[in-house]
């Protein structure tokens, strides 16, 4: 990494390589493109929302790897029933 890179706050090239490879390998291993993952997430949100109200902005979704195997990880906050009721009340007012 050159002095200029550091000065400009640019990430070192080894880290870029590793991060880019992490993403590429997930796609290669699962045969899922970023677009497909996104549409999977949207379907998931739609399905779950039919049963319970969720906080989409606080949600985490992605593929993680554990050794050579991949897992789909979704962490979806549910809006509390208390707040839901309050929201409904304010709407009916």
């Amino acid at each position: 990494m050159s002095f200029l890179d550091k000065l400009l706050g640019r990430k070192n090239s080894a880290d870029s390589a590793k991060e880019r490879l992490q993403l590429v390998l997930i796609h290669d291993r699962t045969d899922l493109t970023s677009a497909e993952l996104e549409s999977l997430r949207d379907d998931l949100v739609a399905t779950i929302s039919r049963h319970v109200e969720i906080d989409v902005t606080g949600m985490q979704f992605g593929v993680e790897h554990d050794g050579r195997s991949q897992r789909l990880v979704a962490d979806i906050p549910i809006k509390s029933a208390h707040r839901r009721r309050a929201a409904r009340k304010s709407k009916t007012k």
Partner: protein
Amino acid sequence: MPAQVVTVTSGKGGVGKTTAIANLAVALASNGSRVVCIDGDIGLRNLDVILGLENRIVYDIVDVIEGRCRLKQAMIKDKKLPNLHLIPAAQTRDKNAVSASDMNRLVKDLRSECDFVLIDSPAGIERGFKNAIAPADRVLVVTNPEVSAVRDADRVIGILEAEGKGPGALIINRLNPALVKKQDMLSADDVLDLLAIELIGIVPEDEGVIVGSNRGVPVAADPKSRAGQAFRNIARRLMGEEVPFLDLESTGSLWERIQRLAGRK
């Protein structure tokens, strides 16, 4: 004991498969093992020149498979190591001349004759690669600390798993410790983290490898070469020994070496 059959492959070309085979062959044979190398890169014969045996070829692997000669006649004996032999690739014939069952049959005949059969695979994941891994007991995947080589290695490891050949063991070749230190090259740990398979060797970038290939004398024969040392260590690991990995960082500046000696780093 029947031979251990080891195939070296990589997906990407030019990462050091042929270099690895030649050096492992020399290192194993120098330790007294009986070694037969098979050049599986049909149409792109190379192992013969890297081993310095190109002038002795009469018959090749396709001649054996098609019955034009006996197996023994196609086995070229090394000049210095009498227990090292090469079965060269065919140079002119088409790639479809060899099938996986041909390879299996050939290797079966060799198993009782030696301690190690080392098979050099062509680049890619097509027929030549499939032929090379078919008879393997163990597959070594060579990669370089670079994005394309690591990506291709991952593909190959996936295929090996799917074909029931295990994930294989990894050789990281052409590691440049100075570049790793500048954080401009993936470290061995980074590569291992990404590929998540067993490591069997880390070989440094070494000009001696090119000098050795110019002369047809692999660096494993040079006691002073660092790459040679790394290949000799891999050979010992193949023989079942536990050998610690080289500290490649110690190629740093004199000051850093002194600090390290003083236990400060």
